[in-house]
């Protein structure tokens, strides 16, 4: 069991960190060169206007007043208005549009990494010093040495440009329109913003409707036509997810291997074997469960690398998530947008690590002491 006290303590520890994060983010606007009012109005705007805008934005107030206001606004997820990229619209709206894109990429990337990395790490440890082990280890070491902005272009060149099996960029084929809501029995329902899930919902809706009111069971014959937009979305996601996932997979399999090696030398493994327990069950039930515990912490830490990787992946594959948004915002000196994006990234990372810590304490209650 996870005690409420542990979670409360862990949350309390978050407060100074979040405070510090907000301070760093506040500093972005105030340490960056240039007058924000000038940036908004352009270099040729009359001084009169600039002075007035400075007053409106509260840039003439003492720095601590501005800091207090920033903290209060940030606590309400109000990051101000975008200067350039989406001029005039609230930063939060822009972020809310783009965030699901990055989260989708990160989740699939993480799942790929876990599904491939953990079995490989276990295999490598169980067959220590065999050929399989050497190949896996060297493969993993190579995997963490290959930057995403090289592996990304390479898989694109091979699978999209040369073989033509998969699309080169974007989130869905150009013949499809990304809806932002769906209709069920006449009611409008919001969608997630994650293209694979949304298209699946919409396609399934159309398909079921056709079975009930149209073609009947004959609709199964043209299943791929009904799921065309979903298939297109998956095809577009495949290479980015693969690129992002492989790097994390390599990291995870290394951790899993060393953790597993430590565990299978423990007495309780010897005991399990001595009592005649099958090797499979010994490894999976007694070994894996214990070896996973430290790896879960690593998954949290490595999630930061994954988010950084998402920025690069989005850039290579032309996917408009918050990573690409951040890069564009920095290029355009759109500081409120930079602040909002950086804060959201830091929050995501911190929350995932909080979740990881809680999971960890659930799996290994000793940590709560």
């Amino acid at each position, binding site marked *: 069991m996870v005690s409420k006290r542990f979670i409360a303590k862990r949350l309390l520890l978050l407060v100074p960190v979040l405070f510090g994060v907000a301070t760093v983010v506040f500093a*972005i606007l105030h340490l960056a060169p240039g007058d924000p009012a000038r940036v908004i109005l352009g270099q040729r705007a009359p001084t009169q206007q600039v002075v007035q805008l400075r007053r409106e934005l509260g840039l003439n107030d003492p720095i601590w007043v501005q800091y207090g206001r920033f903290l209060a606004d940030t606590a309400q997820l109000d990051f101000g208005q975008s200067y350039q990229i989406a001029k005039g619209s609230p930063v939060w709206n822009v972020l809310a549009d783009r965030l699901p894109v990055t989260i989708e990429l990160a989740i699939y990337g993480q799942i790929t990494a876990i599904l491939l990395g953990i079995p490989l790490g276990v295999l490598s440890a169980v067959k220590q010093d065999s050929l399989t082990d050497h190949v896996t280890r060297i493969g993993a070491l190579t995997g963490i040495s290959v930057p995403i902005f*090289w592996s990304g*272009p390479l898989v694109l*060149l091979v699978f999209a440009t040369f073989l033509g099996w998969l699309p080169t960029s974007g989130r869905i084929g150009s013949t499809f329109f990304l809806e932002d809501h769906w209709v069920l029995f006449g009611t409008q329902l919001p969608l997630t913003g994650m293209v694979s899930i949304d298209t699946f919902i919409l396609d399934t809706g159309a398909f079921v409707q056709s079975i009930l009111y149209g073609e009947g069971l004959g609709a199964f014959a043209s299943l791929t036509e009904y799921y065309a937009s979903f298939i297109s979305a998956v095809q577009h996601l495949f290479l980015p997810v693969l690129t992002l996932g492989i790097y994390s997979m390599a990291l995870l399999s290394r951790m899993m291997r060393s953790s597993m090696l430590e565990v299978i030398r423990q007495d309780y493994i010897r005991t399990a074997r001595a009592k005649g327990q099958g090797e499979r069950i010994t490894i999976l039930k007694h070994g894996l469960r214990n070896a996973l515990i*430290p790896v879960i912490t690593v998954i949290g830490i490595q*999630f930061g690398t994954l988010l950084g990787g998402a920025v*690069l992946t989005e850039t290579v594959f032309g996917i408009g998530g918050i990573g690409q948004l951040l890069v564009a915002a920095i290029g355009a000196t759109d500081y409120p947008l*930079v602040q909002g994006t950086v804060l959201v990234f830091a929050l995501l990372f911190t929350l995932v690590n909080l979740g990881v810590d809680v999971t960890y304490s659930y799996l290994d209650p000793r940590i709560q002491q």
Partner: protein
Amino acid sequence: MATETSTTTDSRGIVERLRASPFLSELLSNRLAIIGLSLILGMVLLGVYARLFIDLGAISQSQLAAHPNKAPPGWLGSAALDQFLFGTDAAARDIFKRVLYGAWLALKFGVLVVGASTVLGISLGIIAAYYGDVVDNVVMRTMDVFLAFPSLLLALALVAIFGAGLSKVVIALTLVYTPRFARVVRGAALKVLEDEYIDATVALGARDPRVLVRHVLPNCLAPITVQSTLNFGLAIIDLAALSFLGFGAQAGTPSWGLMLKNGVSNGLLTGDWWLSFFPGLFLAITVLGFNLLGDGMRDALDPRMRETVE
């Protein structure tokens, strides 16, 4: 712990001392670590060679005829282009020369980032460990804030403050990497401070700086070296990543990151793979070298550290 201390008035020869060190003998018997070291040394040689002898001067109009743009590597068939081992880029520049020069840039800026953050991290970590209490808390909680950002994103946020350019990227990455060193050094220093010889030194009347520099620091060197080596690879990737995103090297600089950026924008859809392939290959080989060596060092230092040093 197998650390080399230079503080003793040891009269043994350097070779004998190296041989007596279990750390080095262990490291030198690790084949993968030796491969890593060779890769790094090879890259250093190439980089230095490029810095000294390769002329990246602009291509004159008369040369342009013999310098077609986006020419594939010479060995792929067209005999006329034999001179271009790695082909040419969209601006008709010889990719081979630029990739070699990129090694010089990557290593130079990597040394700057890792060197600066190691020095900063050592200072902060040792001070935090030695003075403890409030100092420790202030220093380490500040480090925690920096560690609360995913590293590439913190670097991007700092670039938003400092502006783009290789020298500014070096400063940004130094700030990003310092907390990692501070953490490792603090941990190591706390362990060293428990040893009796520290008490003895203090009892003999040594002042703080002397204790820290002559006694604590040398005994923390092993984990610091491992950390530096492993982070060197990451630093080179991050440097290239920032150039790739358009915030590092200025247009025209033969940095691997920038060459990859050009490769993506000019060669992906047309299938001109050599624009991206060679710069990335050299980058990956360099990073692999540091990872192999770092892994070997970590295992040699203490096999039990595998999980604690990232």
